[in-house]
């Protein structure tokens, strides 16, 4: 396959899994509650994930070093161990929410019982990761996830108010009292976190190493990150627009994946409904696989075990056991009957706290010319890197108090 094919696949892989159940819920509800006023957070978060994935991918290409190996080296054993526990807890919760979301989607398509569909999802994902190569997973879930574009079509169908949309790119406080302001900040933090979820960076860097990137792939890395995440950002913005234009006027705050699909059904009939349901399956499925693999990568890289999807399971047995264990634990957790959207809300707010610990070592290595040579950060990457590190640190400090004060964003 030529370079063009690689770029195409890379873009698809960046797109697949970018919009998972948490981002879907927060983006649509941000639009319902605050119209276009939180669009700036979508833009800010998308640029942030581009900045840090680009750095992580560049480190992977130049030094073949994954993120968790850097975390352990740069922050020491104890701090890295705490980050590992927190990051893998977030991975587990997110994976559980995605599996629950998939069972809800399959229930809408088949009418089958929810718990049996959770078990089926577990079997399907374990088999998919066991049998498919890394590239095949990227192709299947990336291509399928592109069906989510139907939400962009629906947002255009219901006609975004372009001047209001442009105004939403500039931060502005909502009308209303202090409670509305608190809720606005809670949604800003949650939206930022759902876009910058750390597993995307862990997986992206590990995937670069799996794909045997070298320094000659730095340009490809940049292109994949910019185009792939920009597409994801546009999709996220479209969901916010749908929230403002379609659901807001109908007094609906969607909490179920099927409710989000009612907008595409209203725009495009049955075809819109099925495109949304199948697109969400691939997007949530991509995220479930990414979180399970990311958890296994983190653990193996921290502990120094052999790791990689390209290795046979017997040659990286503990790595294979780790991702299987994450799938099983996630399915067991969601089979207890806990609401997937509630799980993802907790995981997203909790993940904000992990973000600074995950991104600080990446910035330290990417800016160091002794390690990265001529591929170290330039002024722009350093400036953006520090800006986002300060931003996510402030976000992490604010996350838990906002969560408590707003009753987990309910009011």
């Amino acid at each position, binding site marked *: 396959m030529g370079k063009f094919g690689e770029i195409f696949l890379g873009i698809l892989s960046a797109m697949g899994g970018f919009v998972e159940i948490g981002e879907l819920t927060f983006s649509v509800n941000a639009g319902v509650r605050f119209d276009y006023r939180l669009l700036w957070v979508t833009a800010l978060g998308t640029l942030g994930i581009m900045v840090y994935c680009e750095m992580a991918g560049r480190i992977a290409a130049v030094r073949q070093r994954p993120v968790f190996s850097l975390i352990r080296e740069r922050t020491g054993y104890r701090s890295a161990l705490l980050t590992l526990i927190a990051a893998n807890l977030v991975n587990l919760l997110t994976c559980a929410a995605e599996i629950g979301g998939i069972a809800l989607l399959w229930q809408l398509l088949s009418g089958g019982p929810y718990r049996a569909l959770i078990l089926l999802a577990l079997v399907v994902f374990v088999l998919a990761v066991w049998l498919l190569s890394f590239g095949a997973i990227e192709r299947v879930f990336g291509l399928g996830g592109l069906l989510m574009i139907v939400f962009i079509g629906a947002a255009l169908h219901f006609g975004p108010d372009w001047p209001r949309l442009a105004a939403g790119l500039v931060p502005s406080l909502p009308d209303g009292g202090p409670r509305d302001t608190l809720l606005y900040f809670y949604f800003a933090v949650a939206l930022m976190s759902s876009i910058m979820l750390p597993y995307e960076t862990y997986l992206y860097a590990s995937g670069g190493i799996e794909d045997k990137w070298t320094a000659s792939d730095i340009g490809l890395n940049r292109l994949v990150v910019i185009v792939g995440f920009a597409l994801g950002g546009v999709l996220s913005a479209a969901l916010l627009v749908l929230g403002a234009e379609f659901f807001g006027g109908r007094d609906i705050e969607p909490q179920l994946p099927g409710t989000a699909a009612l907008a595409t059904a209203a725009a495009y*009939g049955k075809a819109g409904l099925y495109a949304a349901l199948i697109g969400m399956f691939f997007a949530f499925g991509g995220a479930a696989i990414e979180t399970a693999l990311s958890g296994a990568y983190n653990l193996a890289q921290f502990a120094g075990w052999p790791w990689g999807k390209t290795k046979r399971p017997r040659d990286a047995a503990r790595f294979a056991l780790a991702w299987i264990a994450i799938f099983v634990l996630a399915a067991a957790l969601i089979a207890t009957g806990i609401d997937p959207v509630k799980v993802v809300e907790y995981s997203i707010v909790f993940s904000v706290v992990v973000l600074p610990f995950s991104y600080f070592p990446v910035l330290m290595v990417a800016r160091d010319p002794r390690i990265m040579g001529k591929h170290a950060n330039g002024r722009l990457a350093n400036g953006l890197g520090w800006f986002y590190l300060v931003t996510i640190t402030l976000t992490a400090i604010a996350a838990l108090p906002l969560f408590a004060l707003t009753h987990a964003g309910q009011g």
Partner: protein
Amino acid sequence: MRDDEPRRRKAWRQAALLAGVLLALAALTLAREQQPANRDELKIPIAALRSQAAVLALLLAQVDDPLPPRFVRAQATQLAKAVGQSRDELEKLHPQPALEPTQQRAEPLASRLDAAVQQLRAVPSPPAAASAAAARSLRDALKALEQSLDRPG
């Protein structure tokens, strides 16, 4: 590597501090649970029910065209679970005395919503126009209650 004495003492202090913070948080949460629910807390299940009534109205407006019966039945099953949870949450609340009438007005609306969703679950092609109008009227009644909680007094 063996920990030396000062490091061990420091670790114990940190553990004690963490345990203290967790205990304080647990005590605060418990104390808060004992307080009667305020306007914002009562508004949460009412707002959820209002949103669920609006989803029901939208579902009913799209029954048959374009939504297939299997989808409607499954979506109604999922909605019924959510309505049940919101209804339980509303009924379990012990609001401040001044807010009790609002809770009492919301409870029958929640029951009616529950019944309407269960009916859609059983018969996914009801006479849509009349049902959608009934769901919209439930939504409006819940919204009026929700808005009444915005105003003090």
